[in-house]
């Protein structure tokens, strides 16, 4: 949600809880890396930008601290949680656990529609990699992983995956911003997805699980290659 959207929402439903809207506004800025990791949050500036008092901003920030997107500095200050490669590895460790097992279940439960959706997402990756559109490749990448999780048919697993989504997106955006290489994405992404897709379609649960875990593991290497791991200057970069 950007500033225009925020004002539109306020005009549309003037009685909605302001704290919720402000929360979404700031969370969006952090996830899309408009606010750089590790940078201080200027509440006065946000209050001016949105033309509101500082109370709802404070409520929103408290909630964001609970979410782990924002850190408190001193009594009154706040800063965006910095990113480092250890935190990134923790995220991918968690993904490996969840998605490997989701793939195992999905191989038993996926329907024809799920198969179709998986195939479609792989085509999207290929197309956008040719076009060189990194953000669109990541979108398609996420569509694939989301579909595998969805295909498990387990509402708990689906909800758990959803709670990781903001962080997945945030790291992807950072990768695109760093842009040390011609492309921020893995050139073999579509090929690996195809392997997982075939395992799920053939109902080889163990193969699907292994390939998915291996795939998430491989992302480490890509992150290393693309300069996310061991990059000291990650924090403090801001999108103009």
């Amino acid at each position: 949600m950007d500033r225009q959207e925020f004002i539109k929402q306020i005009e549309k439903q003037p009685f909605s809880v302001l704290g919720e809207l402000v929360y979404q506004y700031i969370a969006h800025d952090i996830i899309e890396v408009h606010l750089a990791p590790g940078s201080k949050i200027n509440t006065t500036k946000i209050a001016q930008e949105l033309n509101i008092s500082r109370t709802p901003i404070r409520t929103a920030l408290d909630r964001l601290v609970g979410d782990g997107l924002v850190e408190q500095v001193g009594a009154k200050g706040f800063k965006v949680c910095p990113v480092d490669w250890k935190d990134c590895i923790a995220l991918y460790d968690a993904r490996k656990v969840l998605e490997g097992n989701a793939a195992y279940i999905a191989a038993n439960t996926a329907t024809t529609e799920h198969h179709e959706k998986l195939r479609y997402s792989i085509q999207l990756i290929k197309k956008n990699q040719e076009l060189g559109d990194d953000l669109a490749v990541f979108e398609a990448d996420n569509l694939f992983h989301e579909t595998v999780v969805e295909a498990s048919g387990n509402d708990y697993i689906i909800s758990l995956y959803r709670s990781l989504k903001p962080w997945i997106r945030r790291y992807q955006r950072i990768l695109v911003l760093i842009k040390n290489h011609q492309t921020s994405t893995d050139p073999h992404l579509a090929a690996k997805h195809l392997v997982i897709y075939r395992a799920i379609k053939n109902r080889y649960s163990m193969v699907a699980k292994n390939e998915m875990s291996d795939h998430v593991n491989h992302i480490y290497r890509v992150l290393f290659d693309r300069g996310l791991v061991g990059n000291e200057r990650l924090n403090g970069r801001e999108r103009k």
Partner: protein
Amino acid sequence: MNKNGNGHAPENQSAAGLNDQVYQYILDQIIKLGIEPGQRINTTKVAANLGVSRTPIRSAMDRLCEEGFVESVSDRGYRVIPIAMSDCFNLCDARKILEGGAAYMAANNIGAKDLEILEHSIVDAKLCLKNNEYDAFAEYDTIFHETLFNAANNRYLKIMHDRMKIKIDRYRYFISFYCRSTAAEDTRHALEKHSCIFRALKNRYSSVAQNEMEEHIAYTYRTLFNLGWFINSQRNSKENLSDLDELMEK
């Protein structure tokens, strides 16, 4: 916009506070089985009991509907969603994945301090079992599982686990309420598994820790099936029998 923004913020916040309290109250009732699965909720009565208007009740009900605790049955009526076999399976699977993964990571990361806490929780729990205090046992059970999660040292696993906490709690109360007859045996079994997992962690056998944790969780929910709760239950026999039919067909 300025006027709206400034004028309504404090009012909205206090309204949000009341909504939150009412929500917590009803949720607590559902989890601790003050309102049983399948039972209807009389919103007028709840409003009168709490001395609040129907608006915060309405907002609490909307939230509970969204979270899958209640469903609206008729125009203004609500009922607590019965506990279904498929939901129980799903929760069990999700817990096995998360806590199994956490046990695996903990085996590699755990420090002396966390090992000590785990050991203490087992020793104290043994005393509870000796004195037949099953409710107190639940506390040490929580300490064991939480310590293990901290030892895994992965904040994303923790974020996910926190998201499931309420549902896990609901089943915990549910099992202790309906499975009293086997409580002694179940508790003894759980305790044995805890010490088994502890030994695996101490020796840093990650795969063993993961396997035993998965076993431990599966056993917890198996009790409900052993007692035939899903088949005998009068309250939601229809849903569960159809679930069972599906299962048999597979």
